[in-house]
């Protein structure tokens, strides 16, 4: 079965164990989660979880339904096919000598990245964008020697006025 990358967005109650419960449903089916990002949402005591996972559409839909059944998951939606804004943040520590520093700064500039730390032999760059943009920058930086990378994983939001995904209803409509 063809697998594709899916982005699931969930609003969950801020309770101990909620992540554990969610992740367990993926683990059980042998999914490897590409990234999972958790943070506060616009609602008090609710967190927003963004999960990126590779799988067949049917399998991901089955997991989404199972996730939706969790008592602490308020709503969850697979926004893969939607018109979405996707962002990730990365911190990259690159080797930099006096000879290469200006070249690296130029690359950072092209990617509208910020220099957040400078040391005698390295630069730390902060970059945001979708995964492709970050991958491209990393590719260019690799020849200088990358010492460390920290990536946040994907956060995503549907464009326009639609708020997240109370897509239980949306789903039902699509099924009919």
């Amino acid at each position, binding site marked *: 079965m063809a697998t594709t990358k899916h982005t699931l967005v969930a609003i969950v*109650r801020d309770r*101990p*164990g909620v992540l*554990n419960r969610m992740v367990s449903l993926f683990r*059980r089916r042998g999914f490897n989660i590409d990234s999972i990002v958790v943070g506060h949402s616009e609602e008090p005591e609710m967190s927003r979880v963004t999960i990126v996972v590779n799988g067949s559409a*049917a399998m991901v839909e089955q997991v989404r339904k199972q996730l939706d059944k969790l*008592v602490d998951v*308020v709503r969850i939606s697979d926004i893969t096919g939607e018109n979405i804004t996707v962002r990730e943040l990365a911190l990259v520590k690159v080797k930099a000598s006096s000879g290469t520093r200006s070249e690296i700064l130029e690359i950072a500039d092209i990617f509208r990245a910020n220099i957040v730390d400078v040391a005698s032999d390295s630069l730390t760059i902060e970059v945001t964008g979708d995964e492709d943009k970050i991958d491209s920058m990393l590719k260019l930086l690799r020849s200088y020697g990358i010492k460390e990378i920290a990536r946040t994983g994907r956060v995503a939001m549907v464009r326009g006025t639609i708020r997240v995904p109370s897509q239980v209803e949306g789903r039902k409509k699509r099924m*009919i």
Partner: protein
Amino acid sequence: MKKTGAQIICESLLAEGVEVLFGLPGGSILPFYDTLSQYPQLRHILVRHEQCAAHAADAYARVTGKVGVCVATSGPGATNLVTGIANAHLDSVPIVAITGQVARPFIGKDAFQEIDITGITLPITKHSYLVHDAAELASIIKEAFYIARSGRPGPVLIDVPRDVQLEQVEYVPPGEVNLPGYKVPTRGHPTQLKNAARLINEAQRPLIIAGHGVIISGASEELKKLAETAQVPVITTLLGLGGFPGNHVLNYGMAGMHGTGYANRAIDNADLIVAIGIRFDDRLTGKISAFAPHAKIIHIDLDPAEIGKNVRVDVPIVGDVKVVLEAMLEMIEPREHLEWLRQLEDWRRQHPIEPAREGSGLLPQYVIRQIYEATGGDAIIVTGVGQHQMWTAQHYVFHEPGTFVSSGGLGTMGFGLPAAMGAKVGRPDRTVWLIDGDGSFQMTIQELATLVQDKIAIKIAIMNNGYLGMVRQWQELFHGKRYIATPLSCPDFVKVAEAYCIPGLRVTRREEVSGAIAQAMAYHGPFLISFAVEPEENVFPMVPPGASVAEFIEHPQKEVSVWPRQNTP
């Protein structure tokens, strides 16, 4: 008024209408047990192993429609509950498990009898709680019962640290349950209801498969009306037995691996399948790609995650079975499907449920039919797991919901005795027969003591064939008759019963069967009969694993060996 955590648990249980707890005490749950003396309305039944507390609560819930409650201490007490909780999870049975936990300062320090039971049971509970504050107890318990019994029922675990049980807090009765993320769908989508009704009205060879969901939802009457109005034959899953009267003219028995030949042929030939409250388990469907090749499928289930999980569905209806059927009935037109029914009757003649053969030794099928005759189908029948379970499903006729209690999804050997116990405690007015196998029975045999101590008058029929019979059957049919690790050197069950002060009989001949059953039923207390049945009798029909349901094999009329079996390796 100030109350201790333990008192709040008891108050909350009473508020939920709880009358019975099954459990076994230990250090971490002791403050709770200590409080029970102040609440004589709560009957506590002391089991001999915590697994049995969970099974008893499970069966109690199945026969009463209430939430079953089991209690255990931390560590090994809690882990012993796991199998019972998993069983309830797979069969969608509402139970609440209360476990003691080490005191809060010791949590996470590998203290004596500390185990992360909420973590362990995470995938097998509908929800679970670790209580950090006695002030939360009342609302947690209310929520737990609500979650256990609403929607698709299931087990909920509440882990209560010892010091939380002792903590004194102001007791405030809980308010309304507020769970923003918890959805309980009720009515199906109107368009889908219309689509379903149209398919039913147009079908030539329609077939209803009724499952546990019909019983849970209390939709037997609606199912009957639907079947009769549209003249649709009904087959059931294992746990669907009793959801549609066994002697109804439209009942064609149980389908699946050990289902009737005619039910399975009906699946194979139907042009419409109305699946009601079932989850298309592999034991029902056989080879999934060959399941119901000519049929459109309407699937009615409360749980949206069940729709399309195993089979493609043409009309999905997410909703409570009873509500959905009620709505659908208004759109169903009276129909006749005489040709289709005639076809089914032909199959019934060609593939009869194998009668108890003459001339051989004591056959388990015969014993089960005799229990049916003696009870008139008016008993609650509980089984373990294995051949005896399938023979019971095939040969006992279940007339009403809640009269067949069995471990379906998990297939838990050892479920029988504690479940029969729980069923009898829940329905003391009913005769409860446990039909068990010698292998299954020995897994929880210690509960004989509970029967005596708590005066639980169940009747026990052991189909004693000296084997782990179902496994042996697979070895015979698919593993070249290599009976590895299946012969059982059994104890003398009658003597075992006697040691527990339970009278018993050993039956080896057909002529003795009905007399022994009558004697058991006439006795005022628990009674055990060990039936020395044909050791190598098989359950037929059987759909071989991996085959389509149409490819069932029937009894090959093989020579059976004679009791007692000769060479045990």
